[in-house]
């Protein structure tokens, strides 16, 4: 009975992924434009590399040379490209225009379909993203500084980041049950993520008081933490703490998402949709 259920879920997921990979392939040009938009961390990297010159910029007990900035911001590039989210758009449209109603009738939870839609896009983009990532590291002469365990841990943290981002955006999108203008919140999430997550300045280089606050926010857990792993700058204790924070945020945001979904859906059906 239990294995039958697992097999059933696995079949649904395979179908969803195949379907949404095909959708992403159909809209390749769109993906390409998106990827041009993702080049920003590389521009930021160039600025910091120029600023560091042949020396290094220090703060809060660590210091970053040009090689460190190169690895840090190439990691930012990969992280931001692999965690692009448009759930706010999907949910806003789905809830306000009623496109959600037919999805509710399907035997597949809408959140699975939304997850699969995002994953399909990543599958199509991943080869190019990885190529840019490796090329960037190679051109900055930092490819050799990566170690196998660090890359592996980075990949693990990337999965955590994706889950946090997905739920964060999903929770904001679900607010469409109550308000009209959720779309205008999207740029806000984006600004907060980029600046408070380390996308413009590595978290360690913020003034100490600000840095101490930022390390506890979900943005640092999703961007700065994995980048630090790739840099190889953190010890085992900080590594464990970082993963613990990630898991904490995933659990908290999942619970929030489920609560918002349940209460929102009750309102939604009450509206006669």
């Amino acid at each position, binding site marked *: 009975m239990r294995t039958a259920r697992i097999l059933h879920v696995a079949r649904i997921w395979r179908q969803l992924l195949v379907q949404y990979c095909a959708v992403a392939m159909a*809209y390749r*040009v*769109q993906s390409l*434009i*998106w990827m*041009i*938009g*993702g*080049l*920003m961390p590389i*521009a930021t990297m*160039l*600025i910091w*590399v*120029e*600023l560091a010159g042949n020396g290094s*910029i*220090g*703060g809060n007990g660590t210091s970053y040379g040009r090689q460190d900035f190169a690895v840090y911001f190439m990691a930012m590039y990969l992280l931001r490209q692999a965690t692009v989210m448009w759930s706010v758009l999907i949910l806003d449209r789905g809830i306000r225009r009623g496109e959600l109603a037919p999805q509710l009738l399907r035997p597949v939870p809408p959140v699975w379909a939304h997850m699969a839609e995002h994953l399909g896009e990543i599958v199509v983009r991943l080869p190019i993203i990885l190529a840019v990532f490796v090329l960037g590291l190679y051109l900055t002469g930092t490819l050799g500084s990566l170690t196998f365990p660090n890359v592996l841990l980075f990949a693990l943290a990337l999965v955590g980041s994706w889950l946090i981002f997905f739920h964060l955006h999903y929770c904001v999108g679900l607010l469409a049950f109550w*308000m*009209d*203008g959720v779309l*205008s*919140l999207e*740029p*806000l999430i984006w*600004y*907060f993520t980029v*600046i*408070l997550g380390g996308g*413009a*300045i590595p978290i360690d*280089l*913020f*003034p100490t008081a*600000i840095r101490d606050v930022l390390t506890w926010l979900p943005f640092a857990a999703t961007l700065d933490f994995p980048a630090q792993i790739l840099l190889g700058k953190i010890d085992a204790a900080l590594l464990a703490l970082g993963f613990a924070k990630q898991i904490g945020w995933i659990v908290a945001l999942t619970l929030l998402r489920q609560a918002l979904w349940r209460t929102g859906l009750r309102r939604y059906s009450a509206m006669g949709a």
Partner: protein
Amino acid sequence: MRSLRLILLFLRNSLQVEMEYRANLLASLATAFFSAGLAILTLLSMFHRTTEIGGWDLPRMVALVGVSLIVEGLIDCWLYPSLNAITEYVRQGELDLLLIRPINSQLMVSFRNIRIWFAGNIGLGIIAILYGMQARQSLTVANLALCALLVVSGVAILYSIWLAAATLAFWFTKVGEVSIIAYTLMETGRFPVSAYPAWARFTLTYILPIAFITNVPAEAAMGRLDWQGALIGLCAAAVALALGSFFWRFGLSRYSSASS
């Protein structure tokens, strides 16, 4: 003259729509406040570790951020709602209905949707520029006027690039969020071109011309721009507008309407 009257008409229509969504004003002000706040936080934190960025000190950088906030405000209230709709017109076939109207199609798609509530960043940008000018003792009417003129020509360049990118929808139907390119440009433009390595400066001046969009107006505000620099900025805008308009008409000639 007729064009101007039409633009005013579009503006009035948009304003009537906007009056129905007054809550957006609050969302917009919050966005403007946080984005400007985060930009200043970034700047101050960077200057916590360094004394200049690409040769620009803090007041100049504040003025530069001011210019980019103004341009971003214009993107939010005008370029984004108008130009981003083009690909949807094409995809859903609405463009056919627009083309049969007896007015210039480029004019219509360019000014049809204006969301005045989303202009919040413009005000904060002006404050930032005035602060930078005050700190540099360059606050004169002449500098201010030249800065305003060059902001307009910078926006004209951005508009042309965006229009050309949206025109690609005639070939690819769904080009999606072209806006992402514009936002990336603006993020890049928050820094002086001189802060980038030498090999990237050419690209950022002539291919992705953030030099003309943000750097040149900021230099004008600081009174550091000579007349040749100003002239080049204006010429670049004229060339960009001509190319953008040409590409739009070219795309239109290749457009095989939705129903055929």
